[in-house]
């Protein structure tokens, strides 16, 4: 943990100079050789500790991100590998986790809010504000129309049954809790996650 990749490169270069190459009389050649090697591509990358997004083994992964140096470029994930410090997976990853870079950068990642009008054969790009305002309006309309404050026996039940919510099971605990809080406060009972399916 104390040795960064940059330090490791320096130590390697020194080691190279002092080892076989040096012993053969090529003093200084080792350092020259090390300097001539293409820089390790992760050397300038930022290393971030994360957890594999797929199954519940929750393998530790190291996410490496960098930019191409262009002024306005956003940092991009360029490499993902197993976290060898994580006692659960000890650095290993399966065929899914090892390829998870392709998930982060998948061409099928959604980029923008989209809207499909009734009867339409296409999605159209909209703004967040348009989407969220319309969703809130539709939700309120349905809730106000169909909310059941009391059941047939006059018991207060405060439930809303005409809208449902399927919750993501790869959301964080924090997102899950906030979702619970927001959704339960509306009276929705049709609430389900991926535990069964």
């Amino acid at each position, binding site marked *: 943990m104390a040795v960064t990749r940059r330090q490791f490169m320096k130590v390697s270069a020194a080691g190279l100079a002092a080892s076989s190459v040096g012993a053969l009389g090529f003093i200084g050649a080792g350092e020259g050789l090390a300097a001539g090697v293409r820089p390790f591509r992760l050397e300038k990358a930022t290393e971030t500790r994360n957890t*594999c*997004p*797929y*199954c*519940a083994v*929750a393998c*530790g992964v190291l*996410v490496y991100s960098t930019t191409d140096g262009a002024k306005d470029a*956003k940092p991009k994930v360029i490499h*993902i590998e197993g976290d060898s*410090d994580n*006692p*659960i*997976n*000890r650095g290993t990853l*399966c065929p*899914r986790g090892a*390829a998870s870079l*392709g998930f*982060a950068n*998948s061409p*099928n990642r*959604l*980029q*923008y*809010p989209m809207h*499909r009008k009734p009867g339409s054969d296409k999605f159209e790009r909209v703004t967040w504000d348009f989407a969220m305002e319309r*969703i*809130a309006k*539709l939700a*309120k309309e349905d*809730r106000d129309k169909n*909310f059941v404050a009391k059941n047939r026996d006059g*018991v207060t039940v*405060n439930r809303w*049954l*005409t*809208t449902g*919510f399927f*919750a*993501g*099971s*790869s*959301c*964080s*605990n*924090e*997102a*899950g*809790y*906030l*979702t*619970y809080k927001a959704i*339960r*406060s509306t*009276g929705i009972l*049709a609430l*389900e*996650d991926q535990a069964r*399916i």
Partner: protein
Amino acid sequence: MTNSWNDIKNADVVLIMGGNAAEAHPCGFKWVTEAKANNGAKLIVVDPRFTRSAAVSDLYAPLRPGTDIAFLSGLMRYLLGNGKIHQEYVKAFTNAAYIIKEGFKFEDGLFAGYDESKKNYVDRSTWDYEFDEQGMAKVDETLQNPRCAINLLKAHVERYTPEMVERICGTPKDKFLKVCELIATTANGERSMTSLYALGWTQHTTGAQNIRSMAMIQLLLGNMGIPGGGVNALRGHSNVQGITDFALLSTSTPGYLVLPTEKETTYADYMKSRAFKPIRPGQTSFWQNYGKFFVSQQKSLFGAAATKDNDWAYDYLPKFDTAYDVLKMVDMMAGGQMNGLFCQGLNILMAAPNKAKVQAGLSKLKWMVIIDPLETETAHFWENHGEFHNADPKAIQTEVFQLPTTAYAEDEGSFTNSSRVIQWHWKAVDGPGESRSDIQIIADLHSRLRALYTKDGGAFPDAIVNTTWAYAKPAHPDPVELLKEINGYAVEDLPDPADPAKVMLKAGQLLPGFAVMRDDGKTSGACWIYTGVYTEAGNMSMRRDASDPTGLGIHPNWGFSWPANRRILYNRASADPAGKPWSERKKYISWNGSRWVGGDVPDYAPTMAPDKSVGPFIMNQEGTARLFARGAMPDGPFPEHYEPMDAYIANPLHPKVTTNPVVRVFAADAKSFGTPDKFPIVATSYRLAEHFHYWTKNVHDNAVLQPEMFVEMGERLAKAKGISNGDWVEVSSQRGMIKAKASVSKRFRPIMVDGKPCDVIGLPIHFGFIGLTRKSYPLNTLTPPVGDASTNTPEYKAFLVDVKKTTPPASQPATV
């Protein structure tokens, strides 16, 4: 998991049944390899298919899909009949000696109290103990009383002879007995067996009873609470454990509390059935603290608006009449009873059974909101994809929104893994395009609704406008703020119980653990089992100390394991009644004369002396674990074999009650089940090592590794149907038809059921009509819309089909 991934290495026998860890959880399976290599463990795999887990096993036994209870009941019969149980453990730590009520019986496939017209056990009053005048359960320590739970269990499983197991499961008798013999070597406290299962056990109409059978076996063997033991659910999604803990479920609230029903009209009513008084002398009955957890949760949700006078905002919670699980939701949608739907990272068109019904349901919605990082079939359900998904956009009036979210590398927060370990992860980069985090999207939705209800009023605004939302940025709460809120605070100064003059915790300070929670509104805490994850000492889920002082794989300072950072549940049971370890090999937690010590957090009062005879199963009112479930399961206090709803044979044990008698079948689905005369082949679904659910078909490398849907079948069936490897095959069920390429393998062999060969085929779940993989027919076109009697988990793992050779699909329409 009762134990942990790392703890698997301590096992002497590993049983993989109802799962396939080598392919579905490869990096967790490494601990099986570790157990085999360094602990001399033997691996047993019981599965209809010769999986890659089976390929590295020491002992493989096939069985027909959906017959696990027959197999496990036969195993129980073997253990009980041959004295291969851990006698002292069973006597002291289970309800073996408890006397069951007169009137409880099992006859012709039904337990006492069944009402044929209601298809339910309307009277479960006899599914209980005899009680004395003090309300204590009656016990016969000599086990002589024929109504002792263990004697009733013996009688119940007596029918499951090795011959009957072979007849129902198709497992050859000699293979079955070898499995029994190997498992029986752990009935002594010297050796342990771990049970690893996944959806292969849950996705049946008898799913919960499958798992209960194994829990009973592990109790008979004395394998609960000890290293290398336990009943271990290998869970699917990265945070499905956490999302379950937070009750994103119809009738639960966070921390395994229960949402009130409409029969419980007041908080006092609700608590009447939740007093959880001990039913054996001196027992802990930890759920006596239920009220503290519930009130603290209400304080987190509704803050100052939850007061003693308004029953802690009891009416802010919806009251349920019935469970609105996935199958019910789809039924309501298809019946035109739903208008709106949110899909947050859940591809329901692919994930729910009977795709035609789901499609009909989505088409009847007025609006649907997709919140997802990826393109999904659900978002495009209205689009025509030819024979893979035939739809007419003009006829579908559903308004659809697709909201892009960030994914794991693009936000921070905590995930809870299958071992209950909560690990924080950090953000590496921003998400693509205009994507936003789930937190931001939900916060935006809530803020807008709250503003609308504050301004315009509407139906019952109270709960919405009084939900606590005291975040620095209300439209974008910080995950750190949320984890603190989950952990809970002192709402007011809390006095020190030892010296009331002193303050133990000042108002606003984070709670150190759930033991300080109160039912008087002075503490908050959204999910009691998580309390301790974020204390005044910091965010425990961020801890990354990999040290393991005991060498048992406990890693106590890596993340935080709920509850109370405990890594093995029920670990008091690792010591005998006197507090001594059952063996030096399995030493874990023991009594040192003044307190319980060991490398883990004791699952017990830390200074409770063993001579107080408090049982180790402190969550139960009796302090012992239940071989007899009382009224806890809707389909019986003992497991019983019932055929899947697509029944392959009449139940040999009781032909008049072939399938689970309390399974819920919607009127619309009455004709949804297949019979073997039309559909003579048993099918099961499975997962591939190269794919995760419906996600990785959007990932290039995985799409290359496994590019398209296929149907795996054995050589005998392929030959009989004239099918060769790579041929196009039509698979049909009572629900629909798909086409897929044949993969003819030796991994499926005919199973001899009731003396006749039964062909089984396997279908991977992962493929659809969106993604980088080839367009495929979704598997769930075939599966039945029915679920487990206890949990309503759909029966994906055993259904009937027919197969025939066919022509390739027509044109491949353009992809998204």
